[in-house]
């Protein structure tokens, strides 16, 4: 009898393991952070489930506080804080976010990762289509463009990951 139970448990475990596979992130709001670890393939940004308020301020605070899930890394330099946020009155759907000056120390791909972790996170708020990020009230001039849309972040090569 005990043997049968063990066999059943083993089958269930195997089934669960087989069903598990590479799970997509759960439905619902998420925070986007850099993917850590030694992986050499896959998206450079990964989601972490979020259960707080769906306001830009709450989302940004949670994002800047860093990940609490293993395997994720914060893309922001130490000491970055949110100064203010507002809706652009002239451009509907545009959210203006001003962060502290430390954010301006980011450059190149590190800046892109930080920018799009904010953009992908905030774009979950209803009405947000684009985000403009400033550091200490100033635009980051060496960015290719200032209005960042979530669709611009290409997280996976669709030809490599979804072969036809």
């Amino acid at each position, binding site marked *: 009898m005990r043997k049968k139970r063990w066999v059943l448990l083993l089958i269930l475990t195997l089934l669960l393991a087989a069903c598990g596979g590479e799970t997509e992130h759960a439905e619902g709001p998420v925070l986007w952070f850099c*993917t850590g670890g030694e*992986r*050499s*393939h*896959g*998206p*450079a*940004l990964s989601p972490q489930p979020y259960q707080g308020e769906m306001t830009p301020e709450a989302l940004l605070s949670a994002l800047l506080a860093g990940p609490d899930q293993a395997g994720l890394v914060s893309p922001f330099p130490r000491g970055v804080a949110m100064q203010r946020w507002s809706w652009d009155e002239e451009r509907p759907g545009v959210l203006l976010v001003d962060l502290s000056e430390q954010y301006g120390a980011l*450059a*190149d*791909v590190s*800046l*892109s*990762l930080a920018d*799009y972790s904010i953009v992908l996170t905030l774009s979950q708020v209803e009405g947000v289509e684009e985000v403009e990020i400033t550091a200490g009230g100033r635009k980051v001039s060496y*960015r*290719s*463009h200032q209005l960042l849309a979530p669709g*611009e*972040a*290409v*997280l*996976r*090569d669709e*030809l*490599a990951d979804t*072969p036809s």
Partner: protein
Amino acid sequence: MNKKNKVPFFASLQVKYALSYFVIFAVVLVLLNTYPLMASQELLFTSKRDSLKSQTAVMASALMELESLSAEQVARVMNMLDSMGTTRILVTDPAGLILYDSTRQPGEEEADSSNGEAEYRYALYQEVVSALRGNDVFYSRYVDRMFTSTAAMPIVYRGMVIGAIYILEVDRAQGQLLDSLQQNLRTISLVIAAVTVVMSTFFSKMLTARIAALLRAIRIVGEGEYGHRLQPVGRDEMAQLAGEFNQLTDRLQTTEEVRRRFVSDASHELKTPLASIRLLADSILQTDEMDPAVVRDFVGDIGSEAERLTRITEHLLALTRLDSLPAGEEWAVDVARVTERTLALLQPVADAAGVTVEKHLKPGCAVLCTEDDLSQICYNLVENAVKYNYNGGKVFVSVYRDGDQVLLEVGDTGVGIPEEDLPKVFNRFYRVDKARSRAAGGTGLGLSIVRDTVRRHGGWVTARPRSPEGSLFTVGFPRYVLEEDERGRGQ
């Protein structure tokens, strides 16, 4: 076969043999289906890594000539290079902004740009991010009959990372090749597995059939059919086992025959004096006025028959003791001394028979034995020599050393033993001349007792005709060499 002796299916040797063959082949098949594929995959991964790395290196070196990257310049350089069967090539600036994507037609980019707003796409893959941080990256996997390999490399100009190049290759041809290899191995494995099942069943059956035959034969012999034999097939251990079984059964059959004959002979030997006693007693009872002298004569006969019964019983008991009891504690016994004493005991018998005993007893002939047993051997041999002798005949008894042996020889000038009876004289109840033996009071067991006793102490006994007349019995024992101190004490 009764139910008690039935071997459970999974405990049977045949199933065990078959399963062990099958398990060995299963392990081989698993190895056949995994190792070559893994090795091929590894080989292909290595080949792809080398190929993609060299391609990215060539493209990166062509692009670093540009000093700084712009979409137009990159497109111009990339159009001059051969894509060499790659699925996608991406070139990004240091921020990960895609400047060139080989899967997009140049017209598409321009069409997007013509809207007045440039299209920005950031390749935020691990490969690109890692390359932009200065690392060479390679990744490959084999899934769904396809090899998907990616490689990325930084484009460096004067120590500065000015962008990254990313190459994706989806190889279906090699994937299908590997898949067909896998299919072939699987088919071969299935065929081998089927053959293994058939062969292991066949071989295990073949092997266990002979074991079953042996088991059956043991049961048949166990039930008392000692004539049953196995036919040894081949020259392997099973054939040897069958041969050993046959030899064992031969010995068992011989022993059983000897036992039966012994019981039959013993019964017969006991029956004869009993019948005589009965007859004599009946004669006395049924004759009303019998002469007292005849009655005394009859009663005397009854007494001698009873004595004979006693002798037979004593001899039978002695033989049983020899068969069942271990030899007593052995000591160094001087054969000459024991023989001397025995001859003294038998001297009145010899005198009564008119037989002269001549002895030649050498001193210092010690053997490991017990005095009682040695005395018994000597007594039986000398008594026989006297009994089966003529009036006025002689008995020669000698004890001497012959190399590392001590020999006791008892010869006589008696009736002798025919050549053909010599091998049988030591058999139980065997008599050369039954009438004479009975008349002399023999039981037919004396020489059997001699042989069994001698053998029990590691000796041997032979009987042969004596020249010019009579018989000669020789008993040999390994000589016991006395220790120095014992010898000293003896002196």
